[in-house]
């Protein structure tokens, strides 16, 4: 029952956020210089052609009317038609979602597997006066190499020495899982380098916070081994910020692992949105951003639930905090 109420509260605030996003993206798209007509029809278009195009996509109506129509359509599950491909945007987004989802999940899996241990290690080994420096350097290095540098580097190296991994030529997982993975491993690895670093640093921070807790001292006093303490007490207590971060990373990536998709030429959502921005394909940009926001919001709810499970004090069911 209480859960239900919590959900209704969340649903309301999520709706508010989505509405905000929709207004913002709608306005931004229309504020962008370079109208759709010039972009798509090219320099030779006549005013009549432009007008005809505007009528076709309802762009001649007052802006708030356009917004209203769009919102109503979206509420009914219709994301509109791409002005370039003339295909329904919803279907195209759906077709691209698996690519981006797989990429983000792989990247996040990588960052959990590598980042969390690294973070724990650097925190537990941190000593005033330089200890843990190697770990700090390592995790610093990860955030220091921009995706587009690393991505280009990887593309160059691996296109010469394939090592069983492929660049480009993406195939759906359902078609050929092995080849799909072979094409996804590298971009996911490039993406996760940054995520690993951030995860490691957040983990380090959280673990440092837990290390000063009396129950950790109590466990040390009971003669538990560091590994045991990490496993049973630290991981779970430090998990909340890390889970929050990971959720945010997933959401971010789902919204478009743009640069990596671009560099590796993967047909994901990020590259779709950015190409659409470049072409002023309004419906696509709007729908793409709304989808990304929706994913983000859902992710956030999931994170909150998860964090609540991890830390009963913060849970949905917690009656009071003090």
């Amino acid at each position, binding site marked *: 029952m209480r859960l239900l109420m919590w959900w209704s509260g969340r649903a309301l605030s999520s709706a508010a956020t989505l509405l905000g996003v929709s207004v913002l993206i709608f306005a931004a798209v229309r504020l962008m210089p370079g109208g759709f007509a010039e972009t798509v029809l090219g320099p030779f278009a006549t005013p009549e052609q432009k007008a005809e195009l505007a009528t076709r996509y309802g762009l001649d109506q007052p802006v708030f009317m356009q917004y209203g129509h769009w919102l109503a359509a979206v509420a009914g599950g219709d994301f509109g038609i791409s002005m370039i491909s003339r295909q329904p945007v919803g279907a195209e987004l759906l077709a691209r979602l698996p690519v981006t989802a797989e990429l983000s999940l792989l990247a996040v899996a990588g960052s959990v597997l590598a980042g969390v241990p690294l973070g724990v290690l650097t925190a537990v080994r941190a000593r005033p006066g330089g200890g843990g420096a190697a770990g700090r350097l390592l995790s610093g290095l990860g955030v*220091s190499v921009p995706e587009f540098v690393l991505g280009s580097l990887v593309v160059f190296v691996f296109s010469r020495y394939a090592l069983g991994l492929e660049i480009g030529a993406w195939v759906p997982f359902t078609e050929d899982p092995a080849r799909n993975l072979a094409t996804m491993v590298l971009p996911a690895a490039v993406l996760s380098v940054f995520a690993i670093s951030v995860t490691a640093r957040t983990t380090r921070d959280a673990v440092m916070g837990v290390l000063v807790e009396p129950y950790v001292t109590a466990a040390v006093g009971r003669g538990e081994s560091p590994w045991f303490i990490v496993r049973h007490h630290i991981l779970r207590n430090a998990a909340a910020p890390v889970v929050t971060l990971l959720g945010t990373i997933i959401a971010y990536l789902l919204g478009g692992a743009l640069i990596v998709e671009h560099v590796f030429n993967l047909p994901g959502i990020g590259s779709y949105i950015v190409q659409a921005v470049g072409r002023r394909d309004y419906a696509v940009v709007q729908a793409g951003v709304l989808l990304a926001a929706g994913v983000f919001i859902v992710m956030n709810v999931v994170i909150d639930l998860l964090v609540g499970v991890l830390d009963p004090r913060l849970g949905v069911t917690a009656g009071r905090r003090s």
Partner: protein
Amino acid sequence: MKRLDRLSIGGLACLLVLVLLALGSLAGAGGDPDAIVGPRLQPPGPGWWLGTDNLGRSMAPRVMEGVGTTLLLSSLAVLVTAAVSATFGIVAGYRGGYLNELVMRLVEVLYSFPAIVLAVLVAAVLGPGQVAALASIVLVTIPLMTRLVRAAAVAVSQRDYVTSAVISGARLPRVLGRHVLPNVAGTIAVQGTYALSVGIAVEGGLSFLGFGVQPPQASLGVLIQQGGTYMIAAPWLVLGPGVVLVAAILAINVVGDGLRDRLEPQETRSLT
């Protein structure tokens, strides 16, 4: 308080060198970054000791200029972000209620925009250039920072020393400035350095997509992006600025971590 550790001091020194390089470029040291001085795509040699680019310009002064552009742009952006996030995060966290709700909704709206899409939109709306890059970095980095600062501020606001100050009759600016701010400063510092690296990445990413600073001005992002296409034929184009960029972000991060540890008064115990 604790002194900065050796690693952080190394980072600081590294940053100092980079700042000096940037200042040197402003003062004209290293030569005109836009002048075509020799044949295209020459490997490092006399006259162009970091090689020449695809227009025959010497890379050395370009890298120096690039350091300046990038550092200035991203640190300015981070300052703005830090100021805005700290203000909103602290006030929302301390005050709670509707203000909090409003700020958090706004932040969430921004947050749920995919970062680079947000940046691209900003650049497209404002027209490309430094202002757009700045605004993009700010908008991309604000949500996370505001959220975290707010969370920290909520925790700090419940502390008894804040209540004590209120009881003593301290005005809001004093309560926020003397009590809440310093105690969320660690969060701001860590997030600030993180934002700085994100900022540099966003700037580079924007250049990568063609929205960055305007030619012929160099920024590390632009140089690396352009050099990237020459990675095999002329690796020096990407190596010079790449190494500098990595050094810069690394130094910033290391210093940020050091600051965090320094600002954190709590003491840890060994697990063994």
